[in-house]
């Protein structure tokens, strides 16, 4: 049993020690793992981190355990290095009793000769989240540190030690706590949405302050926007102040400020964001590029559709549809963020099949960032008929009269006629662009042989005709039937009539 005198002595010793313990706890330094920028965006350098820790400990600083730092990072989901926001720094101060935070990055590290290493360190006082010291040091194997290279580092390990020592050379030996500022009212985060909206739409704002729920019972947060004041309500579960209000009707950008009021302290007004009210409907027009027939664009292989914004603005979403004469949607395409400068339609339905001939409507709808929508439409016609061209043959005196006649709605682009004898030699070749044509072929050039012809024709839309007629024989030699024609098809197995209609797909 200790005597009374001993007990008093022990109490005095404890009283003397207590502030020391408190000081050393608050004055502890946490060293966050150093970011290694030489390894890319997510580089980490634990070796230099350890060297920095050891070097600081050797200078007499009280260091937070590395494992404790890592568990703090894990607990708070700190997934980045080299920087930390005051929100986390405050937690380090409040929860871990850390007085200072050392952040740093390895800016450069070259392991090939000449070696190079660059390091930046910064010391942040956690009480007020202020940077109180910073240093950068760098060294290269090519640096002439001393005469004759006597002081040059011989390897990377030696260079690391030299750079760490150089960087920590100016760190103050006695870190002063200063006068910690009250960072309880610091705004931790502000989330406001949407950024762009239509007149009258609701704006939602959530404000989180850097304070515990217990200290926020007498705090009020007001939002100033468009000469209005909106009081934010405190939600204990989220530890946030939440407010919603309808947007004004005038199209413009509205800055949003918040004021934090606490009894006994002055109001703190901060501009936290802005939103844009956009009630303007986007003006969109469609232009189809193609052959026009009777005032309407006709599909020619494909049609190019160009969307033009009369007052260009960013587009959030677009939808293009093709409808038939009955209004049935046969094809649709859509996209997000940005309108393509042009579309192409190849006359196919959604399943890839070619659409039937007829009239169609192409419709484009766009939505701007606020959700205002506008549409534009254009009619288009699909015609996929073969050019209607007929060839009539008739004997006239000592010649063979050939009459070509085109009877199509679409203007003819060209025609070509080739007549061949039995041996395949071309005995007549002619071409033109007229709808009707008459040709005379002397019978002497034909003789009594069988002949064949090949007729090509193409209309302005690209629809093509190719007609091959083979083994035509003179009627005289078989059976002449009045004026039915000088030549007749031989019929049966001997006659091969091929009509090829092609379209360039």
């Amino acid at each position, binding site marked *: 049993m200790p005597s009374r005198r001993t007990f008093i002595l022990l109490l005095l010793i404890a009283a003397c020690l207590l502030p020391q313990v408190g000081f050393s706890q608050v004055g502890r330094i946490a060293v966050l793992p150093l970011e290694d920028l030489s390894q890319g965006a997510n580089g980490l350098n634990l070796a230099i981190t350890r060297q920095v820790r050891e070097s600081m400990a050797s200078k007499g600083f009280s260091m937070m355990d590395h494992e404790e730092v890592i568990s703090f990072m894990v607990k708070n989901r700190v997934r980045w290095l080299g920087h930390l926001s005051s929100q986390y720094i405050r937690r380090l101060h409040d929860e871990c009793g850390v007085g200072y935070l050392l952040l740093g990055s390895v800016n450069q590290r070259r392991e090939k000769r000449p070696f190079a290493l660059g390091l930046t360190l910064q010391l942040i006082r956690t009480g007020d989240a*202020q940077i109180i010291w910073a240093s950068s040091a760098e060294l290269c194997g090519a640096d002439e540190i001393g005469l004759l290279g006597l002081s040059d580092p011989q390897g990377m390990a030696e260079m690391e030690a030299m750079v760490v020592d150089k960087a920590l050379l100016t760190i103050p030996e006695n870190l002063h706590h200063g006068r910690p500022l009250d960072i309880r009212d610091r705004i931790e985060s502000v989330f406001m949405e949407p950024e762009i909206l239509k007149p009258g739409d609701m704006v939602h704002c959530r404000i989180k302050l850097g304070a515990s729920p217990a200290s926020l019972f007498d705090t009020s947060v007001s939002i100033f926007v468009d000469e209005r004041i909106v009081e934010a309500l405190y939600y204990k579960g989220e530890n946030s102040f939440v407010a919603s209000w309808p947007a004004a009707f005038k199209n413009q950008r509205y800055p949003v400020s918040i004021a934090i009021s606490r009894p006994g302290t002055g109001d703190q007004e901060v501009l936290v964001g802005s939103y844009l009210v956009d009630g303007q409907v986007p003006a969109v027009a469609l232009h189809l590029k193609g052959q026009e027939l009777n005032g309407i664009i006709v599909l020619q292989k494909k049609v190019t559709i160009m969307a033009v914004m009369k007052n260009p603005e960013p587009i959030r979403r677009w939808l293009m549809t093709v409808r038939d004469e009955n209004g049935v949607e046969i094809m649709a395409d859509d996209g997000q963020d940005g309108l393509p400068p042009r579309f192409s339609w190849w006359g196919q339905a959604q399943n890839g099949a070619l659409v039937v001939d007829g009239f169609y409507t192409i419709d484009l709808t766009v939505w701007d960032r606020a959700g205002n929508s506008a549409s534009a439409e254009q009619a288009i016609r699909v015609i996929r008929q073969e050019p209607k061209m007929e060839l009539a043959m008739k004997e006239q005196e000592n010649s063979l009269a050939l009459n070509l006649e085109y009877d199509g709605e679409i203007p003819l682009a060209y025609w070509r006629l080739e007549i061949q004898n039995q041996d395949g030699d071309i005995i007549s070749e002619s071409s033109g662009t007229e709808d009707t044509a008459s040709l005379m072929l002397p019978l002497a050039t034909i003789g009594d042989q069988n002949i064949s012809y090949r007729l090509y024709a193409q209309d302005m839309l690209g629809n093509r005709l190719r007609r091959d007629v083979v083994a035509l024989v003179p009627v005289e030699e078989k059976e002449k039937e009045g004026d039915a024609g000088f030549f007749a098809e031989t019929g049966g197995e001997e006659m091969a009539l091929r009509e090829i209609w092609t379209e360039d797909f």
Partner: protein
Amino acid sequence: MDRRFLILMGVTLACLVVLGGCAGSKPYLQEFKVVAPVRACSVGVLPLINRSGYGQGDRVLYRVLLSELVNQRPWRLALEGDVLAIYRELRLRPWVQPSPEQMKIIASRLGVDILVGGEILEMEEKVEGKRVNPRIKIQLQVYNGKDGTLLWATYHSRQGADYRKVMHFGLSNTVSQLGKKIIQEILKLWEEEELLACSD
């Protein structure tokens, strides 16, 4: 020797000395007129835009700039973490210059008087045998936190060989070291021009 020839030689040599000594030695400062002097007691540094091909060059120079600003004077500097947190809230990408409206919001949230931003136009490190010659071209802009207007801009370009003293002494052999020197020179110029005054 002809006297005119001697005079011509003298003038040529004088020109070479003057021009050679001045080439690229001082940052180019472009100052914009301000209606009222701006109080610069607290600073926020915006993420730098890296237009060079040097990986992470923006972050390297950001850290160096922050470090040099801390050492220049005991003003209040916004934390990099706070700047990035506000960028996330405003859905801003760090490689895109914020608009004046967004600058106002960032400055107000950080509680700073001025914002420093900039872009790295060129950053490279040529290793030739045992020698290294880094080269950096940078442009820094300073914005008024109150209205987001550009106050002044400074362009500076340097290479490691510019700092040669005698033989190989004085050479800057790393981009980190060259970046530090460049930023020190820019900050010195701003100080000399009394652009960073902290008085009401």
